[in-house]
């Protein structure tokens, strides 16, 4: 059971009803449970994945979107390695709230946390937010971007696997700075490229349209305060 090389904590946030729980269920259990009730407080799932031949344990924290759970969910930001900020592409208000969520992330999360913007429900025909708008927003705020559909299982696996790969890259390059022993690992990462480069390079390799967009190099620069 406890046989894993890395453990990463991933926290999902975003307005109520954007499909956070469905994304997590789709990934961890392969289900799409319709008529899901609102999450209370936080829910917790574990999935072990294998990336680059390493066993990775992902602790996924699915938070409640409703306002009154904010003081519970905020307390989980600090220890997160990655934060997935989700909105509903067919619901403008969920997109409009993104700046509020970013403010909250800035206040409570580690400044080096990996941030991913996810536009969910691509299966819907009544899209209100064009892909490009989401992409631009992500670029402006140093986030990766991906559009998913928990219902059609589209990009869900990819979302979590690429986060895992990116976090491994970060962990290794951190080791590499302190210990010479990890030099070989760093080489495997492609010459010690740190942070965002890795993931975006991957996205290009996998040659998918749309895809994960890197927003540049700002990951390791502190957010100030």
């Amino acid at each position, binding site marked *: 059971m406890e046989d894993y090389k890395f453990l990463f904590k991933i926290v999902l946030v975003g307005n109520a009803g954007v499909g956070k729980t469905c994304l997590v269920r789709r990934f961890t259990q392969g289900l799409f449970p319709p008529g899901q*009730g609102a999450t*209370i*407080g*936080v829910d*917790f799932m*574990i999935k072990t994945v294998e990336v680059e031949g390493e066993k990775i344990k992902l*602790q996924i924290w699915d938070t409640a979107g409703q306002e*009154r*759970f*904010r*003081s*519970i969910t905020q*307390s*989980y930001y*600090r*220890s997160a390695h990655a934060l997935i900020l989700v909105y509903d592409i067919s619901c403008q208000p969920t997109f409009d709230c993104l700046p509020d969520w970013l403010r909250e992330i800035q*206040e409570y999360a580690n400044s080096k946390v990996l941030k991913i913007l996810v536009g969910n429900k691509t299966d819907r025909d009544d899209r209100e937010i064009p892909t490009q708008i989401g992409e631009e927003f992500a670029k402006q705020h140093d986030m990766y971007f991906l559009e998913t559909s928990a219902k059609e299982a589209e990009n869900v696996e990819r979302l979590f696997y690429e986060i895992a790969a990116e976090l491994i890259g970060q962990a290794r390059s951190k080791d590499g700075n302190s210990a010479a022993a990890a030099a070989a690992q760093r080489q495997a990462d492609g010459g010690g490229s740190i942070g965002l480069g890795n993931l975006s390079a991957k996205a290009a390799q996998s040659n998918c349209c749309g895809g994960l967009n890197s927003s540049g190099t700002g990951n390791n620069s502190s957010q*100030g*305060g």
Partner: protein
Amino acid sequence: MEMSKLNLNEMFSGWDISTTEKVDEGLLRIAEKEADVNARLEAVLSKQCQIEAKLSGISKAMTTLLAVENDSNKLNMQIVNTAQLAESVSAKVRRLDLARCRASECQQRVHDLIDLQLCSQGVVKAINEEDYEKGAGHIARFLAMDQQLLQRTADDVQGSITSVSDAVRTLEDATEKMRELISKRFDEAVQHDDLASVERFFKIFPLVGCHRIGIEKFSGYICQKLSAKAQKELRNTQDIAKAERRLHLAYADRLTAILENFARVVEVNQPIIEAFYGQESSSLVDMVTILQRECDLEVKNLLLEFNKNRQIQYRIKQVNDSAQRQSGASMAGNSIQSLGHYRKPSGGSIDKLNPKDIDAIIAEITVMHSRIELYFRFMRRRLQTNAETCLQDKEAQKQILDVYEKVVKQCDLSRQMQEILSTYLLFEKYFMEESVMKAIGLDTYEAGQQCSSMVDEVFFILRKSIRRSLTTQSINGTCAVINNVASCLDGDFVTALRAPLKNGYPSGYIDLAQAYNAIQTSLQQGKLHSSDADRVRTNFIVQLNNADMSTEYIETLWQTMEQEIAGTFPNISPVERQLLDSCLTELKTIRDALKATVDFGIQQLRSSAIRPRLNPWVDEFLNYSHHLTEEELSAYEAGETFVQYFIVQLDGLLNSFKNALSARNYDALVSILATEVTNRLERAIMKSTFNRLGGLVLDQEVRALGTYLTGATSWSVRDKMTRLSQIATLLNLDKVSELSEYWNPENNSEMPSWRLTPNEARTILALRSDFRMDDIKRLQL
């Protein structure tokens, strides 16, 4: 045989019979063959008897087999006969059973008919006499009859008597009338607040088939009663609390009373409902659902009053404002935060909320939250036993509980509960952070102590917060508070410990930059005194001890919390267990951060307190001559030797830390000191040259030093001395050739393996001026 004959022919055809000899030879061969064939024939003939015996055995058996065949045919016949017989018997039994069924059905119908007559006669009379129980009893009997069957009976007996359909009609009319009447009477009883009649009619409703209406009407009545009571009590909340001397828990007590009222209603009426409404299994859950609506309302009113009276909204605003101010301040001046360890004491703004002021409110909120949790738990248990009494089917039992879970999930009380928890967490976080800041700000150190006040106080506060979170009975709440504790320790507390360590340990201003920094710091903190360096020194040591002590405290905190959590949530689900464990693990991470802080502090001590002072002492070694004659040796030993001088200095240095540092920190210091001493002394030795007696003295002195350092600590520093001891051993050799005895590990099992490479050994031997280079080079190492 045929085959061999053929073979013979072939054999002959191949033979050369041209000469007599050859013919003779062929003849001989044929004779051989013949003998062979004869032998085989005899063997076959010898088996004849055996085969004949077997054949006769078989023919005997044939006759017995015939008998067996006959017997089995007979048996078969018998079985077939028996089966036919059984078939015909069971057909009769079946017919008989059918007849019996019909007879009993008929009997039932007759009974029904008789009862129908009786009921139809009785019901009218009962209604007229206002004997509702009796009338309802008749109707219940009527409703229990199979209406379709009754209809058929009526058809069957058609012609002769029309009274059946008449009776049915009478009873149907009576049922309608009775239902209306009971509803009316019930309403009248409610109007007159006549509890006895209310309960009387409540029990009649199920008899006339109005389970749902009965439950609704009765629940409505109870809600009305409870509502009136709640309104009255809400007005008198403060007075009741004053009388009970529990003003600080006034609203929690009120909430408890409200919830207890509802719980009591369910508890009292559960047996009645099971007895009278038992056949309708959803009755209790229906009642609970109706009651929940009223409960939501009453709790809502109470919480409005609570929020108003305890100024909750205002206080939430204060907390949020102060959080914003702080994040603003920290953004404006990051450098200030890292230097000064507390962000301005609570003063400055009058509007700032004193954490002590909300302490009581936090306690009250936790009580409220836990009461609601207990209330839901109570209801769940009641419905569980109810479902088990009314239903056998597990699946159906679960359905009842699922209905209730849905009620819980959707009811306003749950939402209110979540709001309460949210307020609690906000306040608890504020209380904890402010109290911790205060403890750090008011940190005092008493002479003679190793740690200052803040460690005890900070951990006291944190433990208090986690304990209080457990009393909410909420796992989500507990997890959130543990998270907040982790972030509080990781932020303010570790920063406060680290800040003085970062500034380094001023050691008599040997390092100018160091001294300058120390003064700068003091100036910024506005407290430059004559003994300022002393104060900085003390502060450094105290914070180092604090950090060390904290690693211990955090472990204790974590362990006790684990126990208390197990005690508070005995029936925790595996997922919830993982949730809590994962949050507790965060505390372990903080412990590692604290350990890193201690290591950092010890390194600082090394660079600023140990190295600068140690180096001149060791360098004294260079001032001594290591080329001694016998006379010089006795003179040297008579005076103060190097090692005596050195140990006195080391002892002085260590003593200045011995009582000030915590045991673990002191050990770490000695360990680092030993490393530094051996490194530096080794370098000094490499710069010197020795004669025989010089080497002897060195060996003695290294031994003395080793003994001293080993005695200074409980840790083993002997290992750190090994290399130095080996150097001294080399320099103390009589002859170069002696080394080969020592060098070979087989000969010297008691000596630790060599830490010196052969080249190093040669270099060291070369320091002996009396050793010949050629001898050294010739050594086989």
